[in-house]
């Protein structure tokens, strides 16, 4: 693991990962490498195990077989990875700033340093004004922005995002999607982003990993990895955008199971 910290080495390597509960294997033969600062989206039908895989990458779940290597934290007072959850899951008993400080606790920073470090990502997501508010006074979109700030505060090498925008209304979701594209330019983190929304994946990612079951009842695996070679600016308006979306829809088998075209 120590050898993986040079600048171009992958920040995340998964080899032959199998995940499941006892005899019930959900995912198998997962191989993936994520480069520094890369944005990888993972898409697949609901129940295919995207979020489970994300947790295994983070080390929150142990794989039944295979291994996952995450590169270690680079700078001092930082963490190897952090996560943005589907529900913001802010601690309601902490003010916004104290929520953002959560991951900074135990990193050897003084109280003032923690405070200053928390304000940086808060201003990145445009919420420095709300630092002293209680979470319950924020809108859903603002709460999710705080969730993103909390994850960025620890300056992670890999940022895991588990359907972070799926619970938001369409307008807020679009706004946060474009904010995330901007945030990427200012952060050194690689992003592994789980979504069931194919357009969202094509809009944000450098590569889209398609998870699908080869047969009914078989564990899901990586069916395809699609590189999105479109410029990030105004990506939705690019001519290749729809083709990518359509190709991915075919891979996931959206046409065969229309009830899962939730995007």
């Amino acid at each position, binding site marked *: 693991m120590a050898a993986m910290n040079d600048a171009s080495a992958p920040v995340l390597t998964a080899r032959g990962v199998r995940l499941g509960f006892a005899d019930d294997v959900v995912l198998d033969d997962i191989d993936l490498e994520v480069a520094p600062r890369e944005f990888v989206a993972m898409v697949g039908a609901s129940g295919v195990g995207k979020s489970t895989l994300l947790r295994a990458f*983070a080390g*929150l779940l142990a794989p039944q077989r295979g291994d996952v290597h995450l590169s270690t934290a680079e700078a001092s007072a930082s*963490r190897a990875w*952090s*996560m943005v*959850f589907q*529900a913001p*899951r802010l*601690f*309601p*008993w*902490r*003010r916004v700033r104290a929520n953002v400080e*959560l*991951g900074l*606790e*135990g*990193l050897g920073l003084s109280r003032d340093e923690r405070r200053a470090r928390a304000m940086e990502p808060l201003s990145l997501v445009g919420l420095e004004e709300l630092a002293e508010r*209680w979470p*319950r006074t924020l809108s859903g979109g603002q709460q999710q922005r705080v969730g993103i700030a*909390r994850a960025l505060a*620890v300056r992670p090498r890999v940022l895991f995002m588990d359907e972070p925008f799926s619970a938001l209304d369409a307008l807020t979701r679009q706004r946060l999607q474009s904010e995330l594209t901007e945030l990427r330019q200012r952060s050194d983190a690689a992003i592994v982003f789980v979504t069931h929304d194919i357009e969202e994946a094509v809009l944000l990612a450098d590569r889209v990993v398609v998870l699908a079951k080869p047969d009914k009842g078989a564990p899901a695996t990586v069916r395809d990895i699609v590189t999105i070679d479109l410029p990030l600016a105004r990506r939705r308006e690019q001519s290749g955008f729809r083709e990518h979306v359509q190709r991915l829809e075919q891979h996931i088998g959206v046409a065969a199971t229309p009830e899962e075209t939730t995007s």
Partner: protein
Amino acid sequence: MTRPARHRRTLISAVSLAALVAIWEAALRVGWLPSNLVPLPSQIPGVLWAEVLDGIWLDVVLSSLSHYSIGLGIGSVLGIAVGMTAALLPRFDAAHSWLARLLRPIPPLAWIPFAIIWFGVTETAAAFIISIGVFWINYFTSYSAVRAIDDGYYEVARAFGQGGFSARLAKISLPAAAPGILGGLRAGLGQGWMTVVAAELFGIPGIGQRMMEASGLLATDVVVVYMLTIAALYALFDFLFMRIQRRVLRWQQ
């Protein structure tokens, strides 16, 4: 409730209480009630003043307060500690759950024989009895408050390097369970007052003992003085506690 509505409510409550006291007074004066069984309300302030001047009132109130606060403190701390530990450690929960089920229905006053055998007719015995009732209230509220915490918070803690037992306890279990724990503390505050008098009835100096003495002499007015004292002290503690509770839980309002 709007402000005028609240004022009207207060007014109705005050008038009703005053009316009840007036009827009580009148019933005694007219002779509808036997004066050896119930005291005249108008006598009560004078009797209270006499008790205060004799120094008896302050003495017994301070004694009771000391049993009360020791019993309340020990019962609350142990109840919260054991309840939270049981909720956080499944093995401990399994190990003690039958014992808890066995002991739980035994009322605090049923412990009086053992309290006297173990501690004699002492203040420790009174504090012990008070602590039992307070313990169970705090035990159960803390247990359920911790069990009700959303697992998602613990996952957040793990994702942000706060997955150790003490970090989870200080950063999630305690603050997330605080509303329930404080609710239990408040209930224990009331329960403790109820047992304090009962625990003193068997001779430990305090409000209860003074009330027993007075009833032996048919001094019903003195009994009522101390009944009102208990009510007033409870109201004061409850009011102070509610202010603290509101401050601690200001993230909820």
